[in-house]
């Protein structure tokens, strides 16, 4: 059975093209992916990301427990702060990537990918043995609305939310237009913005109110198509493409999210620590095509005439007009920023340049 979010009828009424994504019937675009993409970069966009998972983790051992399942040091996470991390398996591979929020004493909110909720829950339950922890999947009770773009701040202010003191990667309980919710200053676009977690029954009201109040800021509803081009430009990983159970955070270029001095043991620590010390055999790179051809998921990468890896996410970059990709390649020093590699597209090799990530630099970090 394909699932629908509480906002499904809103999307259909707005003329969205709907597609099946991770078991959900979701809007892929309302008008044009390129137009929607530019709206978020220049003004303001509203996304329904209610398909994502919301899991509450609480209990006497909640901190100890979460610290055991992710490489990040959860003991250092302050109240109302958020941290990007990964759920690692015993081999250092990734069960999922997550954002964990500390919302109380021994109380956390975990936001996970829609496609991975079941795997995540199974994995969490398997790891809680002997610990005093409650794992409470509330995904079915909450909707998640994301407002993203340089004017997100203006919209939040207009809707009566006092954002002063709420920095990037923090979460606060808030009342916006009379609706009680959790407001997190996070997103998946490379822009400033907020993700608003609200009980399902208030989601339609909030959706309409945001579109109404956002009019003066040029707001538009944005589908999953533009969400993907936006996150790719920001070089944010997509689980299932750029990350899976065989990729480690080190290979994926996520070493910044793996503290080197964490004392506590966690799943995969041995492999990850070894990779931090001795390096990895493959690495994630960014690339920009030198011609008009478009690199896509699973296309092969060549270097000096030999197969050297494959594209994991690729496509057009509406902000730059270039064609870009994330790819895993052999970790050799010759494949470095500025180097030329080739992508096999329709049985021909096309030149691309290895570039620094992200492809588009976030302009509005606060």
């Amino acid at each position, binding site marked *: 059975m394909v699932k629908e979010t509480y906002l499904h009828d809103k999307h259909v009424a707005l003329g969205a*093209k709907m597609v099946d994504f991770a078991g959900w019937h979701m809007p*892929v*675009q309302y008008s*044009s*992916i*390129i137009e929607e993409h530019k709206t978020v970069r220049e003004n303001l966009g509203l996304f329904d990301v209610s398909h994502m998972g919301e899991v509450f983790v609480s209990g006497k051992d909640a901190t100890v427990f979460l610290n055991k399942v992710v490489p990040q040091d959860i003991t250092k996470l302050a109240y109302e702060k958020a941290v990007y991390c990964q759920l690692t398996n015993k081999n250092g591979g990734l069960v999922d990537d997550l954002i964990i929020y500390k919302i109380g004493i021994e109380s956390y909110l975990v936001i996970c990918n829609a496609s991975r909720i079941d795997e995540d829950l199974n994995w969490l339950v398997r790891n809680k043995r002997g610990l005093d922890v409650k794992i409470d999947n509330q995904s079915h009770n909450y909707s998640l609305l994301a407002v993203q773009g340089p004017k997100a701040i203006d919209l939040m202010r207009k809707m009566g939310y006092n954002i002063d003191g709420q920095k990037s990667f923090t979460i606060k309980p808030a009342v916006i237009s009379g609706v009680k919710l959790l407001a997190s200053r996070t997103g998946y676009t490379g822009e400033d913005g907020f993700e608003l977690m609200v009980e399902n029954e208030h989601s339609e009201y909030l959706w309409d109110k945001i579109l109404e109040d956002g009019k003066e800021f040029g707001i538009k509803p944005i589908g999953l*198509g533009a969400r993907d*081009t936006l996150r790719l430009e920001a070089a944010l990983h997509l689980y299932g493409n750029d990350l899976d159970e065989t990729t480690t955070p080190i290979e994926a270029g996520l070493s910044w999210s793996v503290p080197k001095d964490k004392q506590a043991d966690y799943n995969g620590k041995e492999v990850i620590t070894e990779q931090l010390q001795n390096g990895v055999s493959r690495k994630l790179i960014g690339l920009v095509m030198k011609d*008009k*051809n*478009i690199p*896509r998921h699973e296309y092969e990468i060549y270097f000096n005439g030999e197969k050297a890896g494959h594209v994991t996410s690729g*496509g*057009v970059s*509406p902000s730059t007009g270039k064609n870009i990709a994330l790819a895993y390649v052999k970790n050799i020093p010759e494949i470095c920023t500025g180097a030329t590699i080739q992508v096999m597209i*329709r049985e021909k090799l096309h030149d691309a340049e290895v570039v620094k990530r992200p492809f588009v630099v976030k302009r509005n970090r606060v």
Partner: protein
Amino acid sequence: MSLKDEMLCSKTHEYVVKQGSEYIIGLTDYAIDQLGDIVFLELPEVGTEFAKDETFANIESVKAASEIYMPVGGKVTAVNEELVDAPEKLNDDCYENGWLIKIEASDFENESTDLLNYENYKKEVE
């Protein structure tokens, strides 16, 4: 008579319409709408021959890459170069200025029997 009244369409969304002694081939508006923002187009060289149902061009939207097939076989006599440089124009017009190639058909009569007029094509795909 408009183009839509005269053209025949394949179930893979190509249209073919007679113009003088040649045939014009393109993609239907329904196909373009399904693809969304067109960002890449690769057309064959003039003089190339293709059989019916053979891939003669590649098109990509933001979302995906697709192949375009010959609704009938023939030899390419002209390609719409302007579109290769600005494939996004297909989103505005895939007929008058949005044709892809012109061909000399090899056996139009026998090869066009499975093609549908626009009205029936729309019924079939929607």
